[in-house]
């Protein structure tokens, strides 16, 4: 395995509650992800999957434990540097797409390049158009999100996540809002583009079919991360969660 992009060791995340015991969402999570890895993390709703993803994507900070991004401990990063590192290296794909309303597909995809410097910033429209072409939406550049189907919206979201050539793609239930067939197509696309770009892909899901696509699979239960087999178990193969 090449040098990890993210290395988490003993991550815990606790939330203080006003009239109750503190809620321990993550309890000593260890995880290493390197370039080219495809990792899936499964778990029930409320198991802490999204919290882990947010910490790995530098959107949230652990209560305890260490997190290194590209070998730099999170504690040594200022807020601004964390934001810039996230912008340069991490691409998010959300369950609800989170496209910016009122902006065309093209404007949504070029948005991350507004925070980039140099040539990419000035060529953002061209780059965004090329990226949309790659996800099969070359003919729908000027469409508003509300005029696109769920699958198309998620394609736009994938194009947006990849526009800055991130080294880590974090997909939070990417097929959660799609039907089975469209979900499969989207996952094919995501896998293909991530492989082509040489980026690491971490997919959060509770769908065993989606999890089975990964090289490594984990299950998060009660805040503890266990490595499992990525192969689809016969019990799960019959239906989609």
């Amino acid at each position: 395995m090449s040098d990890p992009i993210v290395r988490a060791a003993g991550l815990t995340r606790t939330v203080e509650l006003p009239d109750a015991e503190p809620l321990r969402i993550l309890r000593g999570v260890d995880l290493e992800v390197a370039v080219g890895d495809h990792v899936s993390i499964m778990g029930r709703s409320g198991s802490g999957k999204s919290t882990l993803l947010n910490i790995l994507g530098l959107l949230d900070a652990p209560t305890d434990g260490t997190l290194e991004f590209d070998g730099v401990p999170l504690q040594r990063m200022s807020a601004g540097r964390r934001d810039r590192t996230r912008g340069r290296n991490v691409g998010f794909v959300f369950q609800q797409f989170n496209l910016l309303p009122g902006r065309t597909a093209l404007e949504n995809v070029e948005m991350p390049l507004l925070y980039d410097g140099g040539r990419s910033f000035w060529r953002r429209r061209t780059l965004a158009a090329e990226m949309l072409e790659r996800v099969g939406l070359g003919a729908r550049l000027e469409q508003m999100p509300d005029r696109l189907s769920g699958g198309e919206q998620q394609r736009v979201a994938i194009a947006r996540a990849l526009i800055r050539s991130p080294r880590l793609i974090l997909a939070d239930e990417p097929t959660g809002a799609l039907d089975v067939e469209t979900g499969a197509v989207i996952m094919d696309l995501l896998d293909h583009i991530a492989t082509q770009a040489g980026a690491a892909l971490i997919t959060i899901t509770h769908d065993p079919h989606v999890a089975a696509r990964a090289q490594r699979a984990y299950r998060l239960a009660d805040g503890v991360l266990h490595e499992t087999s990525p192969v689809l178990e016969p019990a799960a193969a019959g239906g989609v969660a």
Partner: protein
Amino acid sequence: MSALTSVAGSLAEAWQELRVHRLRVLLSLVVVAVSVAAFTAVVALGQMLSQGFQEQMERGGGRPALISLTAYDAGADPSGAPKTPDGTALDAAFQRTTERFGVEWTSRVAWLDAQLPGGGFAGMQAVDPDFGVMRRVPIVQGRWFTDADADRLVPAVVISENWWKSLGSPAMAAHPTVELSLSTWAPDGTQTAPVQAEAVVVGVTTSTDGPDSYAGYVIYEDIVAIAGPTISANADRQAWIPLEGADELMEALRVSFGSSLSSGMQAEAYRTDYVFQQEQGYDPFGPMFLVLGGIASLILALGGLSLLNITLVTVRHRIREIGVRRSFGATGARVFISVMLESVVATVIAGGIGIVVVILGLRLPIVTETIFMGLQEPPAFPMSAAITGLLVSAGVGALAGLVPALVAVRVRPIDAIRY
């Protein structure tokens, strides 16, 4: 990221936001445009009215810097009565002094009473032709005196509008005449014997007093020729000098004037213009600017609060969007600048529109004719008011954007995405 791309990116983002949130922008535009227009109009009107007042004050006290040179005999008369100075000598000394210092605009001023044939009196001033410029005497019919008027066989007179109307408003081309019975005052305060004169009306000026209070101007030299040198003994001598270094020049003129007179005569000089009054601590425009400034600030504060309200509501609606932007690399500073810029860009555009509306509105003939009626030089729209309006609109935008920008920065990205 380079500073250039950062600025360009922030502007692009702000512009995109404005384009997307058209309705809100339109509301902001209306609110800001109206308040900036009101602010600019008040500031501009204040400045324009002060120019108008300035012209009025220049009629009363002369254009800055206007000085008055007088002289009196310091020695006591054996009878105890004030000595009568030699008016002719005073005029000669005044002429020598002003010529020596290259003062171009001078006038002697003497006051007379004119009894009119139909009964009633007119307050007359005997002046030199320069007086019209030095005191901005407004002419509504005909013209002011020229140097050639002194050579007329019949004295020329400029009369007040109400006097002219009492004559039946005759055309100047018909060379209307008036019969005057003129008398003046000796230094001891007694009225001199009246002298009869017929004068031809060459111009009509505005009436300054009540409808039955007539006034007029005659040429100083004509009156000296008619009434004798007594009039010059009691006359005032005025000069319009450059404002810069006025006090030094005034003192030099006083000394020179005094040294040109016979021994025992004391020369005095003083300024009568409004600028001198301001220098002495009396600002005639101060209260007006205070009131107008208060009104303008109130209007602006109301506009700013409305804008703040709209912007705050918008930021609350945009929390998820801000979270998404943060997740794609927007730093806290960048979000702050974008929200601020959005507000500033909107208010500057709106302010610009408001200012253009005010400029066009104040140029309408109906407005200028109503507000600046009777002024020799109707004031132009002051560019400083436009620049102030633009700066103020940017300032209001920045202030109204500050609170929402702080709210936007404080939002945690993960909370914002789930919002």
